[in-house]
């Protein structure tokens, strides 16, 4: 478990180096990493390209190429991610019937559990566990918010910095 989260932190650090919000994620089946990614919102100009969404895309492509039913495949997936999935990602992971999510630090701004508990809206839910290497994950975020998001309008950046 800790090893998987360490890999996520490496990916998050890579994101930070690219001036992305530093979030890293791996998807595993039977303890093996089957997809890994980082936040790529600035690179894609698409605010939904969170690390989890990128991993989901990778697995869907893998399933398509190998004629695997993704609906069955996702049922065995355990997700490791440095920051609690946001409301959007939490809903996407619920839709896909993921087995379990392990996150680093909570997401006070958009968290799919902290800000709005998305699990209330779905019949089946994944197991959610947090606080694995949370300090390291948080540290990366703090590092990012010290700097400036080059793509955000100026006024918004100033607001962000106060939070």
């Amino acid at each position, binding site marked *: 478990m800790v090893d998987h989260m360490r890999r996520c932190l490496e990916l998050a650090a890579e994101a930070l180096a690219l001036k992305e919000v530093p979030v890293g994620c791996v998807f595993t089946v039977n303890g093996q990493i089957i997809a890994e990614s980082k936040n790529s919102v600035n690179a894609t100009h698409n*605010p939904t390209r969170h690390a989890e969404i990128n991993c989901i895309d990778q697995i*869907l492509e893998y399933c398509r190429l190998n004629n695997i039913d993704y609906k069955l495949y996702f049922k065995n997936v355990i997700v490791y991610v440095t920051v609690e999935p946001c409301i959007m990602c939490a809903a996407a992971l619920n*839709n896909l019937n993921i087995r379990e999510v392990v996150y680093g630090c909570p997401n006070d*701004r958009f968290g799919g559990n902290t800000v709005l508990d998305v699990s209330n*809206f779905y019949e089946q839910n994944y197991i959610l566990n947090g606080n694995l290497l949370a300090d390291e994950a948080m540290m990366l975020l703090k590092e990012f918010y010290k700097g400036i998001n080059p793509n*955000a309008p100026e006024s918004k950046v100033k607001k962000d910095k106060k939070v």
Partner: protein
Amino acid sequence: MEPPVKRNRIDDSINSITIKNQTGIDNLIDSIINSKNQPQIILGDEYYQTLPLIKVFIGHVKQPKDISKLFEILNEKLPLKYLLHLKRVRKKDILLSPVSFLNSDTQESIQEYIERNIPEIKDCFEYFREATVPLTPPLTRKQYMENLRHWSLNFHPNHYIETIMSDQPFKQSEARNHRIYMALTFEIVKWYFNIKSYEDILQSDFNAAVVVDPTINSVVTLAVDNRHEHPLQHPAMLAIDNVAKTQGGGAWKIDIDDTLKEDLKEKFKIQYGTRSGTAESPYLCTGYYVYLLREPCIMCSMGLVHARAKKIFFSLDTPLGGLKSKTKLQCIESLNHRFEVFTGFL
């Protein structure tokens, strides 16, 4: 309202629903464009609900001449604090305090409380009674009017809220634009999924999105449901990615059919284009309106928050919807962006 009138209305609406379901898709699209009704905003429940009530003590004054003196003394000794939306005085009645203000253990009456704590006014009252009054301020004129029977209220109408909640929140020309862009979502679904009637729409879960830059009245992008191939590719998510492509980004390769785009342009006299690349190039979907045939799911709703869309319009509710049916993301105050949501096209 009298019950017989109500029953007639329900019968009428059932009949009209049955007829509507059999409506051919083209007639439906015509009726969306030509309807006189305007889209209606979806605000938080607090704007629609009846106000919660609280029990208070009222003192009936013997001499009207005492009222101004009582008003001053009570404001000092028994301030209304969080009940400032309630007027202190109504005719010969004076609002004293919430019933819960008295210590229920000692079972002291309001009369005993005043005799003990504000003896200078103890002889001013003919009698005391309890009344029920709204606990929270009215947010709308409707809530204000509904609660006047309880007690006199202070109310400062928010003109923006009153307009946006009215039957005519938009200028006629703007409302017509909203209807045309919504009609496009139905045309897209019709084209891709062989939809023939309103019934076909109701029995499917197909969805489509139209993103508009209202400052230049131009369609930025269109998107159609691909969720049956790819579970993330709901039209809102695709539309956000398509907007990213107009800004030199994007992650998915899928796009809408060019023939359809041309057909829509001709039929609806719309134009395509963005301000991307100009000095006013928008950031993400900032300032954009997003039209969806169906209410977006929670994933898509949050995607639209991330994208900072300005207004969202949809026609049909969805069971897992994030803007009306399951939750209203536009009402979560802690989110860093909020948009307005409208429905009521059919």
